[in-house]
C-alpha cells in the first residue's frame, strides 16, 4: 500500500531523509504549475519549486501533523513567489531589449489558422496583459492569479495568504480595476 503524506512526513522526521523523495515526487507538478502562473517565467518557477521543497524540509519540525502537507507546501510556495515577485518589483528591469520584444509565453487567443493581423493583435494583447500584470502590487497579483487563473475562492485566498477575507477580496478587486484600465484601449480593437 502506498504511504500517505502524513506517514511519509513522520518517516522523514524520524531521520529517513530519502522518504522525502515521495513527497517531492507527489507535489512537484502542482507547485511548478502554481509557480509558473505566478512568475510567468520558467527559470523563476523552477527556482520556486526547488526553494519550496528545501524550505519545507528544513521547516518540517514546525509542521503540525494534523495539517495537510499539500496545503502547507502550497503556502510555502506562495510565500516564495511573493518574495521573488517583490524582489523583482524592487529592482530595475534588466531584461535585454530583444527578450522583451520576443513573443511572450502566454496562451494565444484561441483561433484556428489565425490571420497575420489576428496573430499580431494576439501578441499585442499578450504584451499589454503582461505589462498590466506588472503594474499590480505583489499582493494584488498573487490574489488575482489565485482567483482568476487558479479558481480559488476568496476564503481560500485569504487562508493561503493568511489575511482577512475582506483584504483578499479588496486585492482581487483592485487588481481587476487596474487591469481593466490598462487593457481598456485594446477592447476597441476586438
Amino acid at each position, binding site marked *: 500500500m502506498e504511504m500517505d503524506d502524513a506517514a511519509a512526513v513522520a518517516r*522523514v*522526521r*524520524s*531521520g529517513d*531523509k530519502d522518504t*522525502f*523523495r515521495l513527497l*517531492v*515526487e*507527489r*507535489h*512537484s*507538478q502542482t507547485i*511548478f504549475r502554481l509557480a*509558473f*502562473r505566478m512568475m*510567468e517565467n*520558467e527559470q523563476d518557477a523552477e527556482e520556486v*519549486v*526547488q526553494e519550496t*521543497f*528545501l524550505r519545507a524540509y*528544513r521547516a*518540517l519540525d*514546525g509542521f503540525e501533523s494534523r495539517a495537510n502537507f499539500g496545503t502547507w507546501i502550497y503556502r510555502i510556495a506562495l510565500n516564495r513567489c511573493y518574495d521573488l515577485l*517583490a524582489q523583482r*518589483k524592487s529592482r530595475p528591469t534588466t531584461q535585454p531589449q530583444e527578450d522583451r520584444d520576443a513573443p*511572450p*509565453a*502566454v*496562451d494565444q*487567443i484561441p483561433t484556428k489558422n489565425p490571420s497575420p493581423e489576428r496573430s499580431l493583435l494576439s501578441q499585442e*494583447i499578450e504584451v*499589454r*496583459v503582461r505589462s*498590466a500584470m506588472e503594474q499590480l*502590487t*505583489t*499582493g494584488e497579483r498573487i490574489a488575482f492569479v489565485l*482567483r*482568476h487563473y487558479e479558481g480559488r*475562492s*476568496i476564503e481560500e485566498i485569504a487562508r493561503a*495568504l*493568511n*489575511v*482577512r477575507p475582506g*483584504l483578499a*477580496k479588496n486585492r*482581487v*478587486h483592485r487588481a*481587476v*480595476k487596474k*487591469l*481593466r484600465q490598462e*487593457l*481598456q484601449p*485594446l*477592447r476597441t480593437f*476586438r
Partner: protein
Amino acid sequence: MKHLSDDQLLLDHYDDGDDIEVADRHLTSCAECRSRLAAIEEGLKLVVAPSIPERGPDYGSEVWNRIRAELPELTPRQHWWLAIPRWTWAGAVAVLLVGVFLLGRYSSQKQSPINEATNAGTTTASPAQQVRERVLLLAVGDHLDRTQMLLMELSHASEPGEIDISGQRQRAVELANANRLYRTTAQNVGDPSIVTLLDELERVLLQLGHQPSRLTARDLKRIQDSIQSQGILFKVRVVRVNVRKESAQRSRTASSQKRGQTT
C-alpha cells in the same frame, strides 16, 4: 432603482459573496447592470492564463535529484518532549512558576495555629514566601524584557510595501498566554502597578496576536501609533527597571539574612 456596484458585479462574475442571488435577480431586470457586467467580463477575457510548459512524469525525480544533496541529515526524534514546539516551553515555564507560587501561598495559609499566633502582629513574610516572590519578580522581569523586545521590533519596523510579521505575531500569542498567568499571580500578591501594566500589555499582545501575518504599511503604522499613543513601551521600561531593582534588593537582603544566620 439602485444599481449594482462594480465590486458586486465582480463578485457575481466570480460567483463569490453572500448576495449572489440578490445580484442575479437584479441583473435579470436591469439592462444597464447587465451591460456593465458584460464589459467587465469582456475585459477579463483578455487576461488569459499563461500556458504552462509541460513537465514529464519524471519531473518529481528530477526535482529530487536537484535538491537531495542540499538536504541536511535530520536527527531522529527519540524523546517525546522534542516533539513539543519550542515556543510552548515559555508558556509551560510560566504555568509551572505560577503553579508553584500559588501552591506555596495556599499551603502557607494553612499553617498551624501556633505558627499563626507566632506570626500575628508581624508584617514580615516567611522565608519561603520571600523566595517565591523573588522568583516571581525574576520571571516577570524576563517576561517584560521579551515583551519590550517585541514591541520595539514592531515600533521600528518599516517596509515600503507589505511586511511579514508572522514571527512577531506568534511571539505575541505566546507572551499573551504567559502574561495572563503572571497577571493572575501578581493580583494574588497584590502589586497594583504590575497588575495594571500586565493588564494593559495583555490587551496589546492579544491585539497583535490577532493581526494577519502580512501587514500593509498603513496597518503597520496604525499598530505603531497605537503602541506609541498608549505609552506602553515607556511604562514597560519603568516597571521593568523597578522590578529588576526590587529583585536585586531582595536578593541582597536574602543573602545578608543568610549570612546573619550562619554567623
